[in-house]
Every structure is written in structure tokens, then in C-alpha cells.
């Protein structure tokens, strides 16, 4: 049976200077439901092998389809034969050098999920029941089990097993009155589709009969879902690769105040039950927890071995072989209880979801995004009435500096536009600009 270690041995034997190989086996299921009925029930089994080789400072990543040793050898030999014609990557600074000792990450594998059977269907039945107060619920429920091996030419040979569960549902009380709920967990204990369904339905019912909102500046309470969407972009900006490509609004700001003192953000690859948590990064370096922003001050960019070498720093164990990436973004929890966060707001908007976040200038952080699902005016410290038809058109660094309050109840989010898992409580941002269609 082909292993990551054997792939490394083959590539070394063929003359590669440095090699990292990954072998991933995944079994997953997905139930797609529309208007309270399953429209497609899916199952998938995949085995993927990826070999990254460096030869005379030329870097090649190969995804193999045939996982027998002889065939893998033929393919890698064919690739390496041509590598001398590639241009040299003078910036390449090597892969992580082991051996490493690895520490277990708590709660990333649940045997109950690995042996899920048709339990997803039963969880979905409960979720649909919990959303019975609205006209319709649509979404997905997925479960997955993964075994990932990593090995390298630098004494790395490690394996991790993980599971994941994800439920996403939009509830519609009417066509223009909807709410979105998410539950994401690696373990059964943190997974509650019924609760997410109930939350989505509650928002949808509150959102009935919305009126056109007015453009202008408002203090905004973001629910964890929309706030995560925006924080994903902060996570992107924290990768040193974004700095190098000119797409980070955090570039050159190390040690500077980039957010209000209320705001601290960490990449925690070791968060128990973290959807992105892992024992090691893509080079096989043991995972770690890295502060990105502490009390508003930019602390660290995320690095792999090669980027760290060229920036004279240490890897933060965030490989991505080419581009370092966060594992789990975690916002430091505040002290505000659910309703307290609204107190004293005289002209505000409660945003429960956004979509289609796009940037005019990544390095400046100028962007817009569109609130969807329930959006509500806040008047006299209370949520007053549903509105629609507005767009947030602002600047992300400016918004970070206007973070005023954070709730005390964090929620783990991953989703369609939240490609980096984010754990955050609700957040109050002062003075956010809203625009609307002019005709």
C-alpha cells in the first residue's frame, strides 16, 4: 500500500532535493434539502496523493491519480525529467526540518461521526421539526471523516484522523423574510442542527414585512455569521503571502494599532473542536497558536518555512506550501451579554448575514458587502423593525478601529463565503457606511 513516506522515498530516489508528500483519504456524506425535503442525498469517497518536490530551487506540486508504487514512480520520473527547463525560484527557502514531536489536538476526531451511518438523516428530521414555524427551510447537512498522512525528506512522518460536521439552513417565513443558521463542529457534542434551525427561523419570523432602509452611517451589531465573513478577509491579510502580492491591508503595520483595543484575533490551529484544527501544517510542522492582533496591535504575520526564511523570522507553522494560511481564526470574547450589546445605540442596524463581499482595493481594504436575511433597525437600544435593500460600502481597517463591543457567547462559523473557520461572538462596530441603489 502506498504511503506518504513511500512517495517521499520514490521522489528522493528520482533525484528530488526536498520532498513533502500528503496522502488524504476522505469519506463524506451530504444531504441537500430544499423546502423541508431532501432533494439530493450524496456520498463520496476520495483518496488524494500530493507530492511537492524541490529540485535545484525549482518547485513542482504533483497530484497523482494512480496510487500504486510503480505508476507513481513513472509519473514522478516523467515530471522530474523536465524540471531543469523550469525557471529557478530564487526565493524558495526549503521545507520544515524534523524530526518533530507532535501533541494531540483535543476533540478533532469523534468515532461517533466516523461511524455515522444514517444518523445525518435523523439529525435533519429534528432540524426540520425545530424550524416548523416557518414556511420553508433549505440547506445542507454534511459529515466527513478524514485520515491525513504527511511525510517529508526532512524526517517528517505523521498522521492525523479527523471528523467534521456542518449544518447550514436558511429559513423563509416569506420570500423576503429569511434567516440563516449554522452549526459546525468536529464532534457530535458541539453539533446542533436543531438549534441552528430554530435560530434561523427566529430571525426569519422577526424579518417579516421589511421596509426599504435608508443609506447613511449606523452603528452595527454584527451576528457571528456576517462578522466571520469580514474576518475571513482579515485572516487573508495576515498571511505574509498577501503582503508579498500586495493584497494585505495589514502590510507594514506590525507593532501598530490596526484595530480598537477591544479587538484581539488569534490563529489557533490547536483549538479543541476547531473545524480547522490540525496536528501539523502542510509541511508536517507541529501546529501552534499565533496571535495576529492583540488589543488592536498587529503582532504577527503567518509564515511557512520558506516565507519565514526570506523574511528573517520563524515559521508560525501555517504552511500552505506556497501561501501560509490560518487554521482557525478566534476572536477574543468580550463581556457583553446578548441584549447588552444593543444598549445605548440610538441609530443602528443589526446585521444577521452578508454575502458577496468584494474589494475595490485589497491593500487599502475598500470593499462592499450585501446584508441578506434579517436586517433590522436599532433604535433606543432595541431592535425595532426589519429593513432591506442596503449595502455596506466601507473600509475594513477603519471598521476594525471602530470595534466597540464584543459579546460573551462565541460561535464557530464556517460557510459558503467563510472559507476560513472563524470563532467569534457578536460584535458592535461604530459608524458603518450603508449605501443603496439610486434608481
Amino acid at each position, binding site marked *: 500500500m502506498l504511503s506518504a513516506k513511500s512517495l517521499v522515498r520514490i521522489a528522493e530516489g528520482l533525484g528530488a532535493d526536498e520532498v513533502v508528500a500528503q496522502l488524504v483519504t476522505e469519506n463524506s456524506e451530504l*444531504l*441537500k*434539502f*430544499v*423546502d423541508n*425535503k*431532501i*432533494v*439530493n*442525498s*450524496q*456520498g463520496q*469517497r*476520495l*483518496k488524494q496523493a500530493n507530492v*511537492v518536490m524541490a529540485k535545484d530551487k*525549482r*518547485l513542482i*506540486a*504533483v*497530484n497523482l*491519480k494512480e496510487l500504486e508504487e510503480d505508476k507513481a514512480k513513472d509519473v514522478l520520473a516523467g515530471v522530474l525529467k523536465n524540471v531543469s*527547463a*523550469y*525557471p529557478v*525560484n530564487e526565493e524558495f527557502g526549503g521545507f520544515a526540518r524534523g524530526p518533530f514531536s507532535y501533541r494531540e489536538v483535543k476533540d478533532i476526531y469523534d468515532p461517533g461521526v466516523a461511524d455515522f451511518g*444514517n444518523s445525518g*438523516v*435523523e439529525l*435533519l428530521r429534528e432540524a*426540520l421539526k425545530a424550524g416548523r414555524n416557518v414556511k420553508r427551510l433549505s*440547506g445542507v447537512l454534511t459529515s466527513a471523516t478524514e485520515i491525513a498522512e504527511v511525510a517529508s525528506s526532512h524526517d517528517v512522518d505523521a498522521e492525523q484522523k479527523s471528523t467534521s460536521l456542518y449544518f447550514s*439552513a436558511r429559513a*423563509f417565513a416569506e420570500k423576503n423574510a429569511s434567516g440563516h443558521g449554522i452549526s459546525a463542529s468536529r464532534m457530535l457534542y458541539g453539533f446542533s442542527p436543531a438549534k441552528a434551525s430554530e435560530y434561523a427561523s427566529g430571525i426569519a419570523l422577526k424579518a417579516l414585512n421589511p421596509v426599504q432602509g435608508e443609506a447613511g452611517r449606523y452603528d452595527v451589531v454584527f451576528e457571528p455569521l456576517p462578522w466571520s465573513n469580514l474576518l475571513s478577509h482579515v485572516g487573508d491579510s495576515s498571511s505574509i*503571502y498577501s503582503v*508579498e*502580492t500586495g*493584497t494585505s491591508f495589514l502590510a507594514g503595520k506590525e507593532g501598530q494599532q490596526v484595530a480598537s483595543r477591544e479587538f484581539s484575533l488569534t490563529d489557533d490551529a490547536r483549538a479543541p473542536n476547531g473545524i480547522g484544527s490540525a496536528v501539523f501544517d502542510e509541511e508536517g510542522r507541529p501546529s501552534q497558536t499565533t496571535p495576529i492582533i492583540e488589543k488592536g496591535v498587529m503582532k504577527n504575520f503567518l509564515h511557512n518555512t520558506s516565507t519565514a526564511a526570506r523574511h528573517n523570522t520563524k515559521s508560525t507553522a501555517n504552511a500552505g506550501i*506556497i501561501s501560509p494560511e490560518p487554521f482557525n481564526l478566534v476572536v477574543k470574547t468580550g463581556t457583553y451579554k446578548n441584549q447588552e450589546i444593543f444598549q445605548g445605540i440610538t441609530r443602528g442596524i443589526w446585521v444577521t448575514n452578508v*454575502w*458577496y463581499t*468584494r*474589494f*475595490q482595493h*485589497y*491593500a487599502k481594504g*475598500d*470593499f*462592499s*458587502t*450585501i446584508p*441578506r436575511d434579517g436586517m433590522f433597525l436599532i433604535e433606543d437600544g432595541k431592535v425595532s423593525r426589519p429593513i432591506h435593500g442596503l*449595502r455596506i*460600502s466601507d473600509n475594513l481597517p477603519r471598521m476594525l478601529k471602530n470595534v466597540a463591543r464584543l459579546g460573551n457567547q462565541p460561535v464557530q462559523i464556517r460557510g*459558503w463565503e467563510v472559507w476560513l473557520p472563524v470563532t467569534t461572538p457578536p460584535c458592535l462596530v461604530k459608524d458603518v457606511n450603508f*449605501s*443603496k*441603489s*439610486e*434608481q
Partner: protein
Amino acid sequence: MNLELADFAVREGLNLGAGYVEARMESETGKGFLLKNGIPEVAGINFEEGLSVRFLKGKAMGFISTNELSKDAVSRLLRQGISRLHAANGINADVSFSVEKASTADYTVKQKTDIMDVSDGEKFNHLIQLYRNIKKAEPSLLTAHFSFSNRIREKLFVSSEGARIHAELPELSFFYLISVGRGSNTMQHMWQYGGSGGFELFHGWELEKKLASRVKALAKVLEEGKPLKPGSYDVVCGPEVTGLMSHESVGHPYEADRILGREAAQAGESFITPEMRGTRIGSEHVTVIDDPTMPGSYGFYLYDEEGVKAGPRTLIDRGIIGEFLHNRESAAQLGTRSNAAARASDYGKEPIIRMANTYVKPGSFSDDELFESIKQGVYVKSFMEWNIDDKRFNQKYVGAESYLIENGKITSPVRNPVLELTTPALWKSVDAVGKKPEFHAATCGKGEPMQGIPVFHGGPNIRLRNIRMK
């Protein structure tokens, strides 16, 4: 490719009690090259092969996929799939398909220069030379992220109704994200090129000329451009903007699965309803087509992922709402026929309704005629930021390369002019359509899990009257 396994999968599905079974087998050889500020980061080589099976058991739909290409694995996954359907008794939706001809076909996109005959080193060096030449010609280029990829996909579709479609589809794409600077002022822009064919397409894109021209134009905007004074203007949208508008505010809301709510959970729904067919949505100058069969296009195909023969679809005909984009499921729901809009990003994803190549049909106006009657206007030639709500009603486009139009002439650059308007207001304000179309490549996202698929969007310059801009 193990074509026999696809036939086995169909037989096995029927043996297990499914009433309808289709199998899609795909093999891909792909290569990608990444250049960051002139540094060759990495070459990626992808070999992939896999199979998926979609089936109806009773009226419930199941789908399985794997790259473990053995009869045992396929049989096991099918049994599990059918067990899942049984477990969900009572909450399975009733799914049915429109009746369509079971086609048999075999087609290949021809390549003048086989993309696999051009060495990896040569492809990489083309990118490096491109960067160096532009940087030399236009020092205002600050950062540049280039990626070039090519792939050849072999696809087989077989169904229990007797359809059998085999295709070989070579495809190329180039993407850039650049920063341009003048003093302390900077702008960013990103764009994609793509098509179906051989390496000749890469040369046809004239990247050096076009990118250098773009950098130069953006530098001029930085140097001379002033913010637009908010107010009412006549607007000419360049082909890049016209194409995006046709994709976002015509193609997407005309997808029947959105109209019927099947994508409500993520990609959203549509402000269009079935009852709106035949009603006016735009001026008589507006005709919007989606045509998968456009030769050389990035969204090219002759048969969709349900084996239905493709052809052009008229979404808006002289301002009147025409046909929606359908697959067999939505067509059955609305009592019509599929127009072959079922696509999947790869074998492991279910086919859903997608655009292919969407464009505003060219009109009769020369560029001079479009501009000459404008007293006070804005020419939005390209954009960076854009978005649209999930019913495809409220949209925003922020200009990148943009100019004032004064007394019929393009004059000084303007910085980041903003169009923020509704879909009916947009298409009803069009009073002239140019005669020179351009087609541009993009990757369109939809579905959960997300599926990115290659598309063209395009059209000529179009003129919008009396638009409030800021």
C-alpha cells in the same frame, strides 16, 4: 479512462432497484504555473480520474462519487446511497426529469497547437517574459500575481435511457491581479482570460499589449483622475462591464433552479418568477443570449451533464423576458423541456443549472454614434469591485479605468465612479448598443458545495441614459 466502469455503474444501479441511473466519468490532466512579482513560485501538475453516479429510486434522488475506480467500491457506495434514501423515507422530495432524447455523440475540441506539446518550461518562461516586458514598459506596475493553467478533460456520460456522450475538452486560462502606483496613490485590478482550444489561444490573447495598456491607463487615472461629482449622467459601459452585467443580472436570475428555490440556501433565489415570462424587463435594444456552443469559448460544450444537446438560449429578446435556463429537473417542474444548462465543475459534484457564455447581442451603433450625443457622461471601461444581492435585483459596479464624456468626447479620467442600481432600471435605461462585441472569461460560483465553472460573458459598449452615479 476506464469507460467500462461507467456502464457497470449504470447496470449496478438498476440492479439495486433504481428506476433511472446516469454515470459520469472524467479524467483530467492539468498544469498550472504561478508567478509572483516575476518569481516563478510553483508549477502544479494534476492527474485526476473519477466517477459519479446519479440515480432516482422511486422519486428520490441519490448521488455518489469516488476516485476509487473499482466495481467493488462503486457497488458499495451505491448500496450506501440507496440505504440513505430509505432512511429518509417521508422527507425525500419527489424528483422527476423532463423527457429528453437520449443522444449518442462523440466530440473533441480541436487544438491548432496541442497544449501538452508546449513544454512546461516554455509556459513558465512566457509568464516571466510577460512580467518583465510590462514592468520595463510601465514602471508604475508595483505588484503582479499571474497564474496560467491548462487542462484536457475527457468526459463520458452514460444513462439507463441509452444516452452516451464522449467528449475531449482542452481548456486554458490566465488570471492576473496587479497593483499600479503613482506616488502614494495606488489602484488594483484583476482579470481573467480563458478559452477552449490549444495553446494558440494564449498567443491570441495578446497579454503583453493588453496588460501594458491597462497598467498605463490605470496610472493615468491615478495621476489625472478626480472623484466623480455625484449626479445624473449618461453612461457608456465598456464590453467588460456589459458582459458582467449580463451575467449577474440576466444570466443568474434566469436560472430556473433559483426561480424555483432549489439554490435558496446559499446562491440565493431570483426576483424573476415564472409568470414574468413574456413581460418587459429592458428596452427594445436589449437582447441577451447564452450560448454554450460558441466555438473557442471558455464555457463551451455541445451536450450538457445530463446528456441533452445544447444550443443558444435567448434570455431577453428585445427587452422581453424569454426563456429560463433549465435542466431536466426544473423543466419537469415548469412543464417544459431542458435547454441543456446542467453543468458540474467536476465528476464529484452534482450537475446544477449554470450559464455558459452569456452576452448582450450587438446592435448597430458605432462607437462614435454611442458617444456623440452625450453632453455629460461617464465611460466605465473596466471595474474592480462589484456585487449583487441574492435575488439579483440590487447591484453595484465600481469603475477602474473610467473617463468623463463631455460634449460627445471622452475627456479626463475619473476615479472609482459608482453605479448602484436595480436590474430593471439598468436594462430599461439602455438606448443604444454598439456593434463590436468582446467576450471575457470568468469563473462563476454556485452550489453547495461550491462549484466554480468556466464561463464567458460579453457584449459591446452599451449606452445607459440618465443614470445617477456617485
